[in-house]
């Protein structure tokens, strides 16, 4: 009875704390988006959109390319996740860093890298770019969970004569299924709402709903059409969430006893994980190398002038120093992580309403952007052009990703541990601090890295917000690549290459 009381007490305490993420998301996401819909949604326009033949084609293309991209990402991502979460070998940390780096890069940089290698446009380059971008999502979400699956179970299965494929499907998969589904859902959404990559690599005949929303809202000024399209997009993504949530539940309820220990084996058969990792790196890193190449080579000759420029002096044509751009981006990334990670942790360790916290994924960046500028426009809420508003919005955008990055690890902590701690007299906070937090640490570190990466690379919604003297890295890169002159463009690629190197450095540690 006492045990029950303690536990009940713990749950209700943290439930109260859930107010923080709920209020945060309500104020900075639900309210502005609701405002957009209230002002610009028209049923008649919705009807027009649904009956438009070419828009249906756009929706269909968005859907199938996203499904194929997700499958391709899983095909590359899952084996390397296994290799990197089951084995440690020389260079495994570096490999993790390299595989995460593309996540921060602006679409134009990844697309330019892919294009430099394929030299042609079409579906294959699009799929490749999506894989490059999203392998990190699988790695960061499934990895921490896979590392927590008790190896003894696998050994036991093997001893009992199960083949490795059976061990995987019957023993390992049920333990990681919800993490895999969670990652796959995210990848699907990122590919479904892909915009820059499709525009550059697909040519104008291939459009996604997201790019159509942007075109209608920003280029043509048809906010009503854009809003109707945003509803269609939200409904499709919502349906996908619904289906994956259900299958996730049915797949993972059968066997839900996870080992609390984090196990890392000494490599017994070193070669397989090494080969898998190397293959994944070739797929992901070759477009990045193309970026570094363009920052170093001009007219077939090695030239370090762009690198000299970004370390000393002013960026050509931008009249801001690269140092200030880098500082701004880092300050934003750290601020966003400080807001986002604690909120995500609160949600992940409680059974909070998931649908609410998935919303930012379903809603088009343009819809949020419009909502923000028409909502936070009068004192005392006149925040739309404030400097601190940008990292705050980064935190909103990163929140669903963070929750998914923390959730599998948080769920894997068995209740028996918490109960044992409570029985031994530990306060709920002490239990959290000494039992749960240490177990969550690897997942927390990775989530923080991912949150910073989201902030560093965010372009969609923030390009909609006004900035005063706060040029971020993706914006600076877009501007440099958006001007004539070999030196400006080379500096753009050098900044992108610098982002890659810094991210590899940071992510190798986290």
């Amino acid at each position, binding site marked *: 009875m006492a045990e029950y009381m303690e536990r009940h007490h713990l749950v209700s305490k943290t439930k109260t704390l*859930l107010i923080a993420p*709920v*209020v945060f998301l*309500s*104020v900075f996401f*639900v*309210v502005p988006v*609701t*405002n957009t819909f*209230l002002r610009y949604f028209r049923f008649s326009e919705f009807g027009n959109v649904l009956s438009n033949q070419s828009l249906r084609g756009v929706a269909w293309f968005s859907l199938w390319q996203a499904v194929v991209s997700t499958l391709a990402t899983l095909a590359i991502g899952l084996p390397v996740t296994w290799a990197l979460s089951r084995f440690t070998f020389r260079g495994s940390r570096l490999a993790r860093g390299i595989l995460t780096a593309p996540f921060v890069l602006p679409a*134009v940089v990844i*697309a330019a890298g892919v*294009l430099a290698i394929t030299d042609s446009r079409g579906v294959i380059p699009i799929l490749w770019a999506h894989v490059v971008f999203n392998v990190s999502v699988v790695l960061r979400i499934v990895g921490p969970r896979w590392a927590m699956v008790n190896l003894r179970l696998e050994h036991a299965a093997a001893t009992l004569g199960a083949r490795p494929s059976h061990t995987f499907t019957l023993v390992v998969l049920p333990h990681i299924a919800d993490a895999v589904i969670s990652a796959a859902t995210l990848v699907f959404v990122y590919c479904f709402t892909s915009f820059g990559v499709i*525009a*550059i690599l697909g*040519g*104008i*005949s291939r459009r996604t709903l997201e790019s159509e929303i942007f*075109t209608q*809202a*920003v*280029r*043509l*000024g048809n*906010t009503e059409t854009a809003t109707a399209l945003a509803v269609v997009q939200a409904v499709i993504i919502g349906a996908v969430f619904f289906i994956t949530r259900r299958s996730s539940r049915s797949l993972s309820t059968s066997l839900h006893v996870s080992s609390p220990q984090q196990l890392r084996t000494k490599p017994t058969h070193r070669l397989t994980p090494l080969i898998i990792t190397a293959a994944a790196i070739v797929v992901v890193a070759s477009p990045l190398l193309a970026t570094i190449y363009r920052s170093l080579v*001009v*007219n077939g000759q090695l030239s370090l*002038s762009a690198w000299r420029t970004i370390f000393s002096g002013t960026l050509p*044509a*931008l*009249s801001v120093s690269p140092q200030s751009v880098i500082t701004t981006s880092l300050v934003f990334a750290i601020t966003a992580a400080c807001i986002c990670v604690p909120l995500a942790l609160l949600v992940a360790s409680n059974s909070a*309403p998931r649908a*609410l916290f998935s919303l930012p994924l379903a809603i088009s960046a343009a819809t949020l952007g419009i909502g923000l*500028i*028409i*909502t*936070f*426009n*009068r*004192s005392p*809420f006149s925040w*739309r*052009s404030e400097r601190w508003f940008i990292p705050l919005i980064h935190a909103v955008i990163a929140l669903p990703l963070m929750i998914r990055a923390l959730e599998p690890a948080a769920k894997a902590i068995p209740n028996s541990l918490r109960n044992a701690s409570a029985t031994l007299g530990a306060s709920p906070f002490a239990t959290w601090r000494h039992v749960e937090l240490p177990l969550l640490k690897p997942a927390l570190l990775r989530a923080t890295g991912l949150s910073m990466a989201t902030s560093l690379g965010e372009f969609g919604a923030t*390009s*909609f917000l*006004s900035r*005063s003297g706060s040029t971020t890295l993706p*914006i600076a890169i*877009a*501007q440099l*690549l*958006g*001007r*004539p*002159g*070999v*030196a*400006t*463009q*080379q500096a753009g690629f050098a900044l992108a290459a610098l982002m890659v190197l810094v991210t590899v450095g940071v992510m190798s540690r986290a």
Partner: protein
Amino acid sequence: MKFTRTLITASLVIITTACSSPTANTSTDATPNEVTLLAYDAFTPKEGIFDAFTATTGAKVKVVTSGDTGTLISKAILTAGNPEGDVLWGIDNTLLSRAQKAELLTSYEPVDYGDICVNYDKQWFTSRNIAPPTSLEDLALPTYKNLLTVQDPVASSPGLGFLMGTIAHFGTDKWQAYWKSLKANGVHIAADWTTAYTIDFSGSSGKGKYPLVVSYGSSPPAEVLYAEKPIDTPPTAVIESTCFRQTEYVGALRGTRNPNNAKKLISYLLDVSFQESMPLSLFVFPVNKKATLPDLFTKFAVAPKNPLTLDPADIEKNRDAWLSTWRDIIL
């Protein structure tokens, strides 16, 4: 359930407060020590150019940027009457009518101009002993098959300018046939300026496959100023007869809280010192006749006496129809 209720209550409270606040008084300046200039991301004026303005008026200029011209104008229209700043820089003649319809500005005037023109890679043509094209018609000739990359006019303002140029040149009933011939001649459609110029074009850093690209009349001097190693002449040149005139406007935003400072800032932007700083910082021509041009511009930039033009009202009236016809031809 509790969360849903909290959420709805919070939403309602904020929306009501936001909608019911009184509008600002406009007879005197709300912040006499500051004036906000809204502009597109590529607005990168010469460093310290506003110091003189602050010295004479006592007001600091805060430059607030957001996206490209399209984003800037769409945002300004969404916030018309309750603007994010006092002065708006950068509406061009293809968007002017849309701004007028939304009563975005209380007053506006031209501040700079430039041209959207086909540029070519000089070396590509000399090394092959082929004369570069000299007209829009040439671009559809077999000699120049598969050589031209242009931007999607839906997504890109130079792309739109080029399309408008072809409509101005061939007329509202013949431009369709011209684009069909361009398509048959292998014109490549790029997503935006960056893709066309830095990836597809052979004459700049990307070393792509296309020696002809839609860009600006001022791109060649930029190639010299921002060359990797100092050069005397640009590697690119402009086909003058393809140039479509783009005029940019500056104006005071309706609902500005600093109408007096807004007025002062606009006259400063039209004054000689600022106008003379524009060519090498923004790569546009000054409208002020007293402003002298830098050497680099007089030598290499192109702004024809009689460029292709269209009436902004015509553009606004027909843009959507033209764009969808264009899509039907190209797709």
